């Protein structure tokens, strides 16, 4: 059963159409990599799925709830991680999780906080203020924040931006662990190597539409770059061939 269904989605900002009749679907347990050039509409799509932005026209259903009418149901079902951490610098890691746990109505919050801090390996620094964390640590805590209510769906918007090599490897390991738990994940990224490693399906978004889609087994192991280039600019790829 599809956890995310998007049909004929149009999003306009004033006269400019960013999404132009987009169709998209993600089944339960799928890890979808959403690729595309800057300005293609990837973040706009994720913001609509997260109920942060209203669709202009079209059907959007997440976890069985329709947007924008059943937005609260959608919000309770998903976690969102972007390159901005959405964390309060003047609160400790533990206080941040406590706050978000309260607004997500998490039962047995103390136990859940320990679980997610262990997941991101930050238990030792839980009492330190977030403003003293490195970028990598803050991003790991942001994963804990996104996971505090144990969501079935995760939306990741450029989660690797600004991370150094070690922090990126750590994020890889955490995301693999999360994916193995059977959650539905949609991730936007410009990092094709990481996308190829993590995702089970690759969709290319360009000029407001999904223009190509492939499952992991349908393209060669190191063929994601060629698949992406072919989708974005088919004529040039034919010339190169």
């Amino acid at each position, binding site marked *: 059963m599809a956890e995310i269904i998007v049909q004929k989605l149009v999003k306009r900002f004033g006269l400019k159409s960013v999404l132009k009749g987009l169709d998209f679907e993600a089944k339960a347990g799928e890890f979808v990599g959403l690729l595309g050039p800057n300005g293609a509409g990837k973040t706009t799509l994720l913001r609509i799925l997260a109920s942060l932005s209203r669709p202009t026209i079209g059907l959007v259903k997440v976890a069985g709830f329709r947007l924008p009418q059943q937005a*609260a149901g959608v*919000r309770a079902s998903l976690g969102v991680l972007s390159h*901005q*951490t959405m964390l309060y610098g003047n609160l400790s890691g533990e206080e941040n999780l406590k706050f978000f746990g*309260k*607004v*997500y109505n998490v039962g047995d919050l103390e136990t859940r906080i320990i679980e997610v801090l262990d997941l991101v390996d930050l238990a030792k620094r839980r009492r330190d203020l977030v403003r003293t964390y490195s970028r990598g640590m803050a991003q790991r805590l942001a994963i804990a*924040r996104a996971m505090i209510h144990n969501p079935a769906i995760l939306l990741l918007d450029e989660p690797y931006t600004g991370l150094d090599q070690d922090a990126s490897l750590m994020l890889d390991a955490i995301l693999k662990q999360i994916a193995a738990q059977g959650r539905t994940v949609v991730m936007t990224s410009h990092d094709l190597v990481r996308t190829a490693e993590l995702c089970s399906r690759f969709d290319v978004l360009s000029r407001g539409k999904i223009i190509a889609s492939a499952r992991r087994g349908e393209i060669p192991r190191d063929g994601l770059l060629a698949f992406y280039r072919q989708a974005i600019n088919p004529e040039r790829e034919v010339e190169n061939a």
Partner: protein
Amino acid sequence: MPKQPSLTSFWKAMWAVVWKDLSAERRSREIFSVMVVFSLLVVIISNFALDLNPKTQREITAGMLWITFTFAGTLGLNRSMAIEKENNCLDGLLLSPVDRTAILFGKVIGNLLFIFMVEIIVLPLFSIFNNINLLNAGLLITLVLGSIGYVVVGTFLSTITVQTRTGNILLPILQFPIILPVIISAVRASTFFLQNQPMELIWPNLNLMIAFDLIYIALGVIFFDYLVEE
């Protein structure tokens, strides 16, 4: 039809936002200290700059008080919402499965507590510097009513202005024309209380403040959800 997940109650979410703002402020003192220092500077400068006789001083005290709280409040409101903008925390709040007006009222209560704390510190000092007894029950009621209207409008508007590059400047430009009725009424009611004028003169001003507060609380409930969505 999927099972509706458990949503957070309005009150629980609202108090979580208040707890978060107070906890962060306890650590940083970014809002409170700026408001208090600014207010004290106004009290001191006005005391030395205006060499007034007691009668005139009594007449302008209420005006000076409200000028102080209005400008100090703007500094606090700007900072309070700027904290939500840092690291895109506002999106984190908006992603939670709560009635979004709980977020608005959580921020309003937090901002009100900050402005009340400033008023508690500034009032006795104002009394000492100006040799006027400001510990007057009527004046305190006026301060509460005026502050509620001021903070509700300011918090509501700061969610718009914080999205702009010139938010700090834009907030007072948008806010002051709107809050003018409540500030004028607050100054008049405060002056009448300090001059021990009859209640017939004071009631119309108090009524206007109550009506203003209720109208803007209702507008907040109606429009906040639309305001924070793109």
